[in-house]
């Protein structure tokens, strides 16, 4: 089993490495959205600081959504998914590996880039650790929930809009908790509660979402 996980990881890595554009697009999108805000609302630090948590989180959320649309599409179109479904290995385990790999290459870079852009939005230095931690706990949830939607829309042509409609409402709790944590930190209030809740959501998503993704893919393949 360990060998299978390793081989799957290697396959995903090779596929991602040979199409770097797919990985860079969401990051560039994230960077552009955030850098547009100071240009649009003006360089007033007080105003930017109020908006910063929301802007960073919404940009991260949309960037994740952008990267998810094609997650299973190419595997569906070339028949790879059929082979996954008829394999004796548990499908939910394989999709968990795939989504975690996807997060490592798309979610984690967002977490690492966020402090840089937060500084641009005049967020104080002492808030940055909380911002990073909230993104670190929140982006896996975004990836896993989004993958459920991507799995359900895998067989549909132009499923991108439907994916957004399906998934964005489910993202709201993560968004509220994430921005809440950063806002509390800017006002010097305790943030542990927010972060613990986000940790809970992460654990829930890691344990339950793979089952949903696997079920969605089975439906998609049987169309």
């Amino acid at each position, binding site marked *: 089993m360990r060998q299978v996980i390793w081989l799957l990881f290697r*396959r995903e890595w090779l596929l991602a490495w040979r*199409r770097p554009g797919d990985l860079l697009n969401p990051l560039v999108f994230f960077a552009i959205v955030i850098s547009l805000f100071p240009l649009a609302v003006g360089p007033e630090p007080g105003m930017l600081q109020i908006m910063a948590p929301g802007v960073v989180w919404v940009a991260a959320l949309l960037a994740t959504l952008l990267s998810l649309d094609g997650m299973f599409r190419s595997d569906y179109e*070339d*028949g790879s998914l059929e*082979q*996954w479904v*008829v394999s*004796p290995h548990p499908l939910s385990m394989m999709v968990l590996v795939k989504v975690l790999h996807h997060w490592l290459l798309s979610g984690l870079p967002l977490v690492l880039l966020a402090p840089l852009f937060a500084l641009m939005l005049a967020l104080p230095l002492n808030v940055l650790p909380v911002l990073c931690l909230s993104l670190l706990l929140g982006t896996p949830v975004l990836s896993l929930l989004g993958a459920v939607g991507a799995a359900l829309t895998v067989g549909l042509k132009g499923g991108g809009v439907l994916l957004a409609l399906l998934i964005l409402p489910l993202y709201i709790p993560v968004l509220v908790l994430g921005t809440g944590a950063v806002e509390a930190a800017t006002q010097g209030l305790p943030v542990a509660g927010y972060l613990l809740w986000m940790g809970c959501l992460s654990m829930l998503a890691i344990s339950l979402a793979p089952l949903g993704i696997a079920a969605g893919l089975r439906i998609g393949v049987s169309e």
Partner: protein
Amino acid sequence: MSARTLEVDTLSCERDLRELFSGLSFRLEPGKVLQVAGPNGSGKTSLLRILAGLLPAAEGDVRYDGASIFSGQGREQWRQNTLYIGHQPAVKAMLTPEENLAWLCALKQPVSRKAIWSALEQVGLRGFEDVPSRNLSAGQHRRVALARLYLQPLPVWILDEPFTAIDKSGVAGLEQHVLAHADAGGSVILTTHHSLEHLPQVQVLDLREGC
């Protein structure tokens, strides 16, 4: 390696509220090749997809070695014993044939690099082991997928149009390989427009007759 008896019991299939076949029953003994025949749209691919476990059957049951392949232990055993190759070759354009096969085989049982190279040689892809698959032709893509038949000693093969896009000499080699598999005690279920009826191991199931 040796297959067990496969029994299909009053199987029906519906797509989009249209009945493709119903009450289909047959037995496949080890050492036999079943060629599923019928005109386009008669449900050949659907039957194979039901047997592979990709499509739910509307009614009926399929038993392998006495256990239903649709649930529990029987499904587990069936998945470990079957090799399904569908219309789509499942070959990623961005990966080389060797990388493709390493992962496709790992879905059943990981195989060594040496075995992959020798299988690729047997399907006539020597020298293409590390060429990106996007540079290969459609026939070569299919050959990569079919190289699994030389790599994995699974008793039951389910092959949907395996000979599509493959040249004459390639088809002859594959037919020999399929027959050798049957002679060694394996079972093969396939759809093809090539005529195989003259061979003693082959039994034909015609979906048009409504069996």
